């Protein structure tokens, strides 16, 4: 997937987020931060901060593992804090997540099923030695936005009748954003609500084995070239 496609997906996710508190997962979701309305959306990071600011200038900031105290959920990437930020321990951080207090999370996905199941952490047949905070994020956030390429790197569909990869959580996805389309779950049914004009409904269906309905108000949009945003 090209950088510009990733940025398009991130930008499109950001359009879903106009206020509130959001946790962004790793991968494409990290890019979403650049497109959020300034000051209206506050970012939470599970390692213990509400009010994540931009990364410090790498030319001015040297990471010393012995003394660094402010990083994002990677555990190693330095960040800054916004003026309204607060810090807390892991228990309170996961109270925010599991307890239903996040307005949304944007999370990368390996597969999503037509019932909103999410697979994002493991691949069958491989050792499963890490899960992190993904399951808590997805179980608790008021909205779960899956940000993903429409097809796998091998060209296989990822939006399926049922996930074949190990689940992160059942029935929790609220919105799927890919480079071709946006799907939303309403009362347990999956709807196509937006697609780009460069493909047909039939082509989309072919790439999307999950059963879904086409929303009455389906929007057909031009995929804009986003490119790297200019950081202010």
């Amino acid at each position, binding site marked *: 997937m090209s950088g510009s496609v990733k940025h398009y997906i991130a930008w499109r996710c950001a359009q879903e987020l106009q206020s509130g508190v959001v946790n962004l997962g790793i991968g494409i979701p990290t890019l979403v931060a650049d497109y959020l309305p300034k000051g*209206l959306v506050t970012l939470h990071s599970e390692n213990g901060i*509400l009010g994540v600011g931009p990364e410090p200038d790498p030319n001015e900031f040297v990471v010393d593992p012995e003394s660094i105290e402010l990083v994002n959920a990677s555990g190693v990437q330095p960040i800054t804090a916004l003026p*309204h930020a607060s810090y807390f321990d892991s228990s309170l951080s996961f*109270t925010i997540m599991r*307890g239903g*207090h996040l307005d949304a999370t944007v999370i990368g996905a390996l597969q999503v099923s037509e019932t909103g199941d999410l697979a994002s952490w493991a691949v069958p047949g491989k050792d499963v030695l890490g899960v992190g905070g993904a399951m808590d994020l997805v179980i608790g956030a008021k909205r779960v936005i899956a940000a993903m390429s429409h097809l796998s790197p091998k060209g296989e569909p990822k939006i399926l009748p049922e996930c074949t990869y190990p689940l992160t959580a059942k029935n929790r996805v609220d919105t799927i954003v890919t480079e071709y389309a946006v799907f939303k779950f309403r009362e347990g049914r999956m709807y196509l609500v937006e697609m780009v004009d460069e493909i047909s409904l039939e082509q989309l269906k072919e790439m999307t084995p999950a059963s879904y309905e086409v929303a009455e108000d389906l929007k057909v949009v031009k995929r804009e070239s986003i490119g790297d945003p200019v950081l202010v």
Partner: protein
Amino acid sequence: MSATLDQIQTGVQFLSADEAVKKIPKAASIMVGGFGFPGMPRHLSRALVEQTDIDELTLIMNSLGSVSTLNALFEQNRIKKVIGSFFSTNKDLVKAYREGKVEIELLPQGTLTEAIRLGGAGIPAFFTPTAAGTDLAKGKETRVINGREHVLEHSLTADVAIIRAHKADKAGNLVYRKTAQNFNPAMATAAKLTIVEVDEIVEIGELNPDEIMTPFIFVDIVVKREEV
């Protein structure tokens, strides 16, 4: 996302006590902070007493002292049930209970505080050794874990929390002082609508981010206390 001070909007509202209690629905469950005097939201309590069309209430609070501002609610016959740990010394409540007007659910204080904290954390039930083998475990599921009897307790959430803090900043972050913390931070996490009264409202950036005890995500409405 390099938002500056004037761009930050968290959605936390700053209202008067009267405006704030108007947001409380009829028949609401309400958590009320405080342990004795410290941390008790007396300013919001007075406003609630005056807002007489909100009734059939369930109160979740540690105790109700005999001089509590909320006692008028019993005289007004607006309380259906109270859940907490210590009500013996409140004559109004004991009278209402004996007359069958109020239901009381008694929990050990540590079970109460953990039920609230876990309610806010999305964990709906837990096994505690407290009260095992006592009358307060009657009718509750028990299980021997690590060779010791435990009681299954269900967590608590509420429609509304009315709490008290020392300071809020204009984002809605809170700090407490001394023994006035008590149940307030946990209750802030466990209600759909959290209303907090504070002594002082300060600018964003004036609170040390390491010292903020309740991040704004748990706060809906901030009310500045007025002198009594």
